């Protein structure tokens, strides 16, 4: 079992309807599995998937990265600072 927190921002926050949530998944899930789980919980996230990137503990990671107990997994929509 892996327990972690998903964080949402801007468009992913609107799509999810929450700022963050605790999730538990069996085994050692990959980032892409975590994203699939988030989409399953909040279907409006699906249309944001293409431009979305994932940060684990504030580092941008690939979809193959493993998510561990206590990680902060942020679903990051396209950014536009400045």
């Amino acid at each position, binding site marked *: 079992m892996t327990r972690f927190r998903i964080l949402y921002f*801007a468009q992913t926050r609107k799509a999810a309807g929450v700022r963050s949530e605790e999730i538990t998944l069996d085994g050692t899930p990959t980032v892409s599995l975590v994203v699939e789980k988030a989409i399953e919980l909040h279907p409006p996230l699906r249309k944001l998937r293409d431009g979305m990137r994932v940060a684990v503990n504030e580092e941008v990671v690939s979809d193959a990265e493993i998510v561990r107990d206590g990680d902060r997994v942020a679903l990051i*929509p*396209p950014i*536009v600072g*400045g």
Partner: protein
Amino acid sequence: MRPLRSCVTQKKIIPAEVLESVHDNSAGGVVLFLGTVRNRNEGRAVIGLEYETYHEMAEKRLAEVEKEARARWRVKRITMIHREGRLRVGEVSVAVAVSSEHRAEAFEAARFAIDRIKTSAPIWKREVLKGGKKLWVDGVPIQR
């Protein structure tokens, strides 16, 4: 008063304080870039911007941008400040100041830093239009 350091903040950016923060007696040049909220975007009348940030990560990214700039140019000091929250037209949303021995490094490093902030710091904005409607501004996928 504590010296100004790179950060993401809800507080108004004071350009003079940003400049002061990169003061260095061995520097021969200082470049200050300010990003400001403009009153039109793609034909729309804009009265303000609402910035949302992933605060902790955005501040880590600023530290990373400084590292990257220092790896490329001989920078004396560098300060990057980005606002979060609601801003009105004309307000400063981002400031980058760089001091270096000669002007070329300061210009280049400042240009690099603002460009890198835009592609790597988790920050979003919504235009607040006349009448109160809010519109997400299109962005680019975040880079490492």
